């Protein structure tokens, strides 16, 4: 038997012998486990080696279990690092609907409500102004919306809103108060809010040539994820 063992060690394990450690750990598939069981039943030298392996198996578990557990430090460090991570942007590999869903899921209820309210207010305001304009121009019985006399605005808003416009996506955890503060700081007006959470902002009192600087400043804001020129 010693001679046989020596030969095995010198030449490396045969197929079944190599599987013994996994058999001891119970991680072989049914077919291999059956092959090993059969070989063990027929080969005393292999069975002897298997009993040695089982001893190694037990002591390896015992050794690892004796290593104890880590302190709370790595968990604190991990979650501090996670807190410091930039807000996760939607994966480009995911579908548009998934990205939209994720954005809306991330918006606070107040932000969603405010966005809708502002959008509704804009529509109401425009409707009111258009109605007032139509009433003022009573001499005309009919005017198409597409017809405009040069330098004669259809609405006050559309005529004087000459500031550059920027599409902004706020961070999902941005609160309405943060957004209001930003609008105040930049003297910006919300023109529209898309269903994907994209805010179209207008910056009155600024020249179109300032758009580049404006976008740079916006992009450096903590609550702004995206700022691009509005077409």
């Amino acid at each position: 038997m010693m001679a046989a063992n020596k030969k095995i060690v010198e030449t490396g394990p045969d197929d079944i012998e190599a599987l013994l450690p996994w058999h001891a750990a119970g991680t072989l598939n049914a077919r291999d486990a059956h092959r090993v069981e059969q070989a063990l039943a027929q080969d005393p030298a292999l069975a002897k080696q298997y009993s040695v392996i089982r001893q190694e198996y037990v002591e390896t578990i015992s050794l690892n279990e004796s290593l104890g557990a880590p302190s709370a430090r790595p968990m604190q460090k991990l979650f501090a690092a996670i807190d410091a991570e930039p807000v996760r942007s939607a994966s480009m590999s995911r579908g548009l609907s998934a990205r939209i869903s994720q954005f809306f899921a991330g918006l606070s209820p107040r932000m969603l409500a405010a966005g809708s309210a502002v959008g509704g207010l804009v529509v109401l305001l425009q409707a009111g102004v258009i109605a007032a304009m139509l009433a003022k121009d009573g001499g005309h019985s009919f005017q198409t919306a597409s017809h405009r006399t040069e330098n004669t605005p259809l609405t006050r808003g559309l005529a004087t809103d000459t500031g550059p416009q920027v599409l902004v996506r706020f961070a999902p955890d941005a609160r309405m108060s943060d957004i209001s503060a930003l609008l105040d700081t930049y003297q910006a007006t919300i023109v529209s809010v898309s269903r994907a959470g994209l805010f179209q902002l207008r910056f009155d009192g600024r020249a179109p040539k300032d758009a580049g600087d404006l976008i740079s400043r916006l992009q450096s804001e903590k609550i702004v994820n995206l700022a691009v020129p509005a077409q």
Partner: protein
Amino acid sequence: MSAAQAASDETLIARIAQGDRLAMQVLYGRHHVRVFRFGLRLVRNEQVAEDLISEVFLDVWRQAGKFEGRSAVSTWLLAITRFKALSALRRRKDAELDDETANAIEDQSDDPEVTVQKKDTSNALRECLTRLSAEHREIVDLVYYHEKSVEEVAEIVGIPENTVKTRLFYARKKLAGLLKAAGIERGWP
């Protein structure tokens, strides 16, 4: 690990990919001890092993969206841990050896004959298990303690499946040699 738990780990990873901190806490609670022990056996330094835990799980937080579920989450975690542990070893001042040499070297700080004075096979076995090279320690731990299959070990270590089998065989042979040096004969090889 049960199939149910494996599925649940995948669900946690999907939630982590969406920024769910609670899912991260659950996954951490479930696996951090094994990550710690695997790392500790490789780097042999508790502080470094604890640092590895936060590094590994931070990688999980960042990479969860890329996890494709082709392997078990625990296998993925151990593969990351191994990579981080080897990087940590490389950074250590006293590890001015190339990777191959560093992995193959055994702990010769004490003579096993002196340390293992008792003829108690269990104690001697545990002592000798700590003296194996990093390359041999990791494969013994992955198979016996972390209950990884041949395929999973191959994935974690990045070697062919046949190499996994022969490496474990030679790790066991080395273990037998250390035990013999300590005066313990087990009848194999």
